[in-house]
């Protein structure tokens, strides 16, 4: 017995739909990497505006973030900056950035010697898998920077 294969005529709509999808993927791949680059440039510019030409140093900062965040709407964020927190030597401010959020600025925390410990826990939103950057400015003008990657399963901005 010969199996009968029905050939369906390809409609104009099918062709248009396919072309549309192809065009969309092409646009998406060409557009979004650029958007991501722009966001990263935003972070670099924001940090530069904050600290000028000061060299950032590694160390002193401990970031507490989950490696994988199931819900990008509330990601527990904690950080601690090592410092004696005395009148002459303390952490002035800590800035948190999320590279690929629609607005990379997350928050600024300002400390005083009376804060005693430059340690904060809070909750943040992450749009997608990305690096979170913590920049700490000390009272003597030195700047420390640390970053960590968080994988996000469900994004937490807009929708």
């Amino acid at each position: 017995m010969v199996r009968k294969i029905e050939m369906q005529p390809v409609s104009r709509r099918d062709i248009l739909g396919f072309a549309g999808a192809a065009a969309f993927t092409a646009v998406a791949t060409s557009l979004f990497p650029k958007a991501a680059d722009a966001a990263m440039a935003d972070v670099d510019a924001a940090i530069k505006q904050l600290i000028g030409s000061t060299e950032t140093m590694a160390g002193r900062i401990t970031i507490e973030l989950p490696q994988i965040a199931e819900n990008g709407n509330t990601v527990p964020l904690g950080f601690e900056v090592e410092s004696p927190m005395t009148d002459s030597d303390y952490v002035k401010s800590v800035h948190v950035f999320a590279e690929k959020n629609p607005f990379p600025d997350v928050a600024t925390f300002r400390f005083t010697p009376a804060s005693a410990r430059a340690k904060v826990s809070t909750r943040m939103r992450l749009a997608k898998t990305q690096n979170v950057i913590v920049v700490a400015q000390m009272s003597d003008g030195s700047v420390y920077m640390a970053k960590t990657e968080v994988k996000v399963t469900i994004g937490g901005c807009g929708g």
Partner: protein
Amino acid sequence: MAKAKARVKVPKTVAKGEIFQVKTLISHKMESGQRKDKKTGEKIPRLIINSFVCKYNGEEVFACDWHPAISANPYTAFYLKASESGSIDFIWTDDEGGVFEKSADITVT
């Protein structure tokens, strides 16, 4: 003005010089300005708490500037050093100029 309910946790008594943790929580939608109304397709305007200040006996000891990436119902835990008995005041301000305040008494022994 949006409604908001604040809760703070501060120890009642601490020894002088001791470092203690302060926990704060305020109910607020923190509308990011990125979400769209599903019916109309229009963007819901941003309305977040953009500033939080903590004062210890009137002196600013800890402060934050928040951006839309802070989650709804912002929770913040931080540390203070016990100097003198008195009050610790917490002040949140949102985009509409809404001010939410909470105060806690502390005894330093």
